[in-house]
């Protein structure tokens, strides 16, 4: 561009240059599309059959290690059977007593009550046996995950050379969708609960590893030096001083690990359950028995909350509760189990909420009958006017059936003309970047995300990467996306991108607004806070149930489920960023005569920008995670591919689709992190 001097003076910033380049490429694609269709759709001749290659390669490798793995599976099967037997055959009075006792030890009366009533609810729901089966899986997989995670964390901490590599792998493991873990494991270990066990052990290890590493790194250097100067060997320093000093952080890891394991154990039901609670949800969902599936979902939520709050208490400074009470509770429950063994009913026979489930079914049925048209209108409005145009573009989405009229080429021309005029006005006002971005947005809506020319997408992402952090990121993003392109999963990737993009955008707007509201109003936060806590504790799977109840299977339900799950970080981070502005900055603004809203706009918001961007980043990762689960209720895209691969035990497709999903998440993650980093630097943080 160096030759065109007026151009270079107009495009004096990275943002303007990048936007101009993308607009230029977009224009080119628009004009050339009719003559060169390969610009829009990647020619199938050039597609590399990666899935097949991976299937063959891994197949051979798997055949080699299968005997060993089957043996591992056999051994783990024993552990699981033992845990299962223990939990199921222990009288429920004792299990409840133990839980209550642990609750007391960790958090006094409040926690004991949570454990007691939580488990009582599970008992009364009639899902006691199923719940204990699920719990047995968690109890076997979590120790494995903790051991594995601790070992990885210590390794990364001790051997500086592997730290970078380990962190990269942990990053990757976090972005690979949960389902994608299952296919290769299925091939290795065969159908059965052990696959779920191993999957959850693998899935739950990274958070532990991360927190162990973080905790060890955060131990004060003087504490480490004091251990050295006391004459400890390296092992003594590590195990007697550094690990215990890092215990609070490590307990955060235990908490996260437990939650991850629980979530995975439930998800693993899709490969065929064995009378566990996740299977129960799936089964009832498939039979459209929403009352039952809602009840089973509630049981999972109760479990999640009990496990989360109790293990979360480990990571907090807490006062010590008397162990005498603990023993009393345990002894009392043992005595009760022995004395009342003939009176107490068998856990399997209890079911007090069958009526409730039926009532829920009934009322949901009534509700949808009465308000069915309203619900349909909501759904159709969102689909026809927002999601569909975004997906396939105005020119295809606007039909007599949807909007009441047929889109014509003239209308497209008008839309573009208005866009160009607006952009020109903005440029004239000196906001060229904004104008160009507006033009791009119009182009995308007119064409539809899934029909965007591949070259336009690559250039666009490359340009974003360049603006966000530089050439290296730009090359990385384009390279990774290029892999998806040649693998033949491009169309599906764009579908995923469209749905998660729409959900993330909604989350950003809605979550940002809620976060702002929570930041200015204490009352609002008092309401939003527990809801956020709750939403974050619920295993992904359960989000699908209410959506299905009201909106049936389809993209819209998936869209809502993603929003419900992914909105939480956006709310939290927005509020956190806004309320943690340093007090002296606010005082300075107040003494300059700023009103509350001026302070919010001029001081708090800019200061919170990096934090809010991090929230957006989390929201994106959450959305991708949920996208795959949502494949269960009918989305197209990569999630569906992964799900199909699971059903067919097609390891090649499973891995490529999983990797493609991970790539999308990784690219989005890096881009947003880049912008956040830039803002942080600009603020000198």
């Amino acid at each position, binding site marked *: 561009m160096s030759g065109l001097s007026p151009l270079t003076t107009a495009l004096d910033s990275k943002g303007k240059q990048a936007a101009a380049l993308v607009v230029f490429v977009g224009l080119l694609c628009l004009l050339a599309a009719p003559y060169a269709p390969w610009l829009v759709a990647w020619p199938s001749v050039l597609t590399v059959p990666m899935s097949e290659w991976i299937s063959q390669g891994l197949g051979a490798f798997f055949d080699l290690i299968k005997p060993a793995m089957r043996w591992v599976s056999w051994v783990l099967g024993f552990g699981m059977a033992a845990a299962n037997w223990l939990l199921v055959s222990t009288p429920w009075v004792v299990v409840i007593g133990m839980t209550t006792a642990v609750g007391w030890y960790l958090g006094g009366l409040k926690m004991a009550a949570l454990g007691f009533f939580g488990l009582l609810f599970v008992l009364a729901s009639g899902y006691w046996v199923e719940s204990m089966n699920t719990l047995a899986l968690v109890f076997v997989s979590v120790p494995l995950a903790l051991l594995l995670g601790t070992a990885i964390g210590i390794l990364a901490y001790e051997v500086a050379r592997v730290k970078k590599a380990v962190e990269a792998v942990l990053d990757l493991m976090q972005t690979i969708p949960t389902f994608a873990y299952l296919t290769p494991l299925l091939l290795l270990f065969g159908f059965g609960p052990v696959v779920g066990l191993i999957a959850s052990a693998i899935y739950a290890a990274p958070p532990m590893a991360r927190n162990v590493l973080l905790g060890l790194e955060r131990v*004060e250097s*003087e*504490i480490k*030096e*004091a*251990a*050295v*100067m*006391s*004459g*400890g*060997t390296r092992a*003594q320093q590590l195990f*007697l*001083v550094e690990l*215990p*000093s890092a*215990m609070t952080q490590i307990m955060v890891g235990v908490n996260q690990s437990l939650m991850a394991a629980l979530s995975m154990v439930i998800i693993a039901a899709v490969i065929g359950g064995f009378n566990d609670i996740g299977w129960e949800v799936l089964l009832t969902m498939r039979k459209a028995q929403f009352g039952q599936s809602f009840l089973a979902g509630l049981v999972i939520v109760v479990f999640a909350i009990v496990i989360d709050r109790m293990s979360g208490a480990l990571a907090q400074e807490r006062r010590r509760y008397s162990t005498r009470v603990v023993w009393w509770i345990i002894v009392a429950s043992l005595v009760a189990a022995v004395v009342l063994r003939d009176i107490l009913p068998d856990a399997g026979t209890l079911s007090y909420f069958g009526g409730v489930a039926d009532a829920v079914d009934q009322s949901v049925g009534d509700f949808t009958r009465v308000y069915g048209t309203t619900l349909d209108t909501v759904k159709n409005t969102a689909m026809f006017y927002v999601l569909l145009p975004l997906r396939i573009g105005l020119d295809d989405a606007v039909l007599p059936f949807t909007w009441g009229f047929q889109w014509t080429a003239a209308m497209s021309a008008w839309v573009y003309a208005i866009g160009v005029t607006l952009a020109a006005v903005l440029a004239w006002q000196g906001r060229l970047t904004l104008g160009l971005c507006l033009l791009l947005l119009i182009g995308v809506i007119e064409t539809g995300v899934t029909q965007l020319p591949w070259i336009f997408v690559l250039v666009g992402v490359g340009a974003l990467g360049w603006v966000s952090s530089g050439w290296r990121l730009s090359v990385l993003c384009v390279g990774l996306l290029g892999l998806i392109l040649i693998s033949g999963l491009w169309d599906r990737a764009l579908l995923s991108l469209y749905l998660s993009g729409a959900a993330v955008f909604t989350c950003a707007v809605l979550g940002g607004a809620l976060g702002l509201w929570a930041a200015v109003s204490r009352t609002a936060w008092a309401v939003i806070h527990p809801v956020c806590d709750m939403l974050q504790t619920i295993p992904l799977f359960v989000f699908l149930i209410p959506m299905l109840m009201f909106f049936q299977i389809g993209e819209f339900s998936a869209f809502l489920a993603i929003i419900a799950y992914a909105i939480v970080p956006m709310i939290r981070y927005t509020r956190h960023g806004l309320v943690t502005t340093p007090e002296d900055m606010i005082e300075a603004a107040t003494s300059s005569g700023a009103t509350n809203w001026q302070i919010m706009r001029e001081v708090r918001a800019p200061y919170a920008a990096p934090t809010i961007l991090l929230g957006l980043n989390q929201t994106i990762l959450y959305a991708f995670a949920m996208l795959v689960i949502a494949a269960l209720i009918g989305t197209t895209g990569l999630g569906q591919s992964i799900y199909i691969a699971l059903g067919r035990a097609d390891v090649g497709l499973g891995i490529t689709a999983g990797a493609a999903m991970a790539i999308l998440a990784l690219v989005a993650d890096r881009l947003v992190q880049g912008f956040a980093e830039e803002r942080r630097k600009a603020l000198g943080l």
Partner: protein
Amino acid sequence: MTGTGGPDAPAIAVDGLWQVFGDGARPALSELLKPGAATTDGVARRLKEQGLIPAVQDASFTVKEGELFVIMGLSGSGKSTLIRCMSRLVEPTSGSVLMAGEDILAASKRRMIELRRDKLGMVFQHFGLFPHMSVVDNVAFPIKMKGVGLKERRARAMEVIELVGLGGREDAYPRELSGGQRQRVGIARSLAVNPDVWFLDEPFSALDPLIRRQLQDEFLNIQATLRKSIVFITHDIGEALKLADRIAIMRDGVIVQIGTPSEIVLNPVDDYVREFSRDIPKGRHMTLEALMEPVDVAPDRGGPELRTAMTLDDALSACALTFEPMAVRDGEGRVVGLLHPEALARAVGEAQST
């Protein structure tokens, strides 16, 4: 000076110690240190040109048996790095550190562990207490490392806990203690194995002024009985002058002057050192030895007995006690009041120290 105790063999001898941070520091430094090469300044400049950071440059000094040796400097002057080189918490790039004749930089890992278990103790600025251990477990930790049984190490730990005045608090956890108490634990722990060499890295800097003075005094008391060979780091010239037998002043990684407190105050080698001692009341640190006219015989006129080690302040008030109050007159020569010279001397001292 410490005077009588022990032979003059140094407890610690540091020679030509360099600590250079950055990739490839070692070969770069050994290249530059070849015989006949540049001065310390020249070497440091070349290192910086290569993007390396010479945190300690060619440090050489000795610490005598039982001496309290203070290293003073501003933050970033390399004093903390220097003490970490001597205790080998960081690996020095070049040079030698002899302790009782043994070059500890050449010691094996095993030997280093032994040395730390028997001969070295260290106190840290932010205490470095183990948060998950009670006071007594913290203090007993170095003894535990030696493999001493529970009963015996608790007994020894209790001795040092009594020594630092924490008796009765042995079952408390660090988070339940005040800053001053925490540092007492730190001191007790560093003394638990009865080390020969005692490193203290700004031990009192994180404390309130009142507590700081109290701990300094107690520290001097402990040292008076234990007589360890001490390397003490501080950024506070007042603390250095109060505690030290000798002081080394560091600037930008270089030791610019080593001397007794009065040498530092009276004969600063450059403006940097002078700047430190500027606000120090000379009367408090300057001794008569530096001020008197050296003669063999002096006429005896009675009055107070003066000693060479007396500070100017002490001498002034000693002399003043013998004088009669004197008349103060106004402009026309009339007597308007009496001035006690003692009050004058005190006032002078106060004016200087504020």
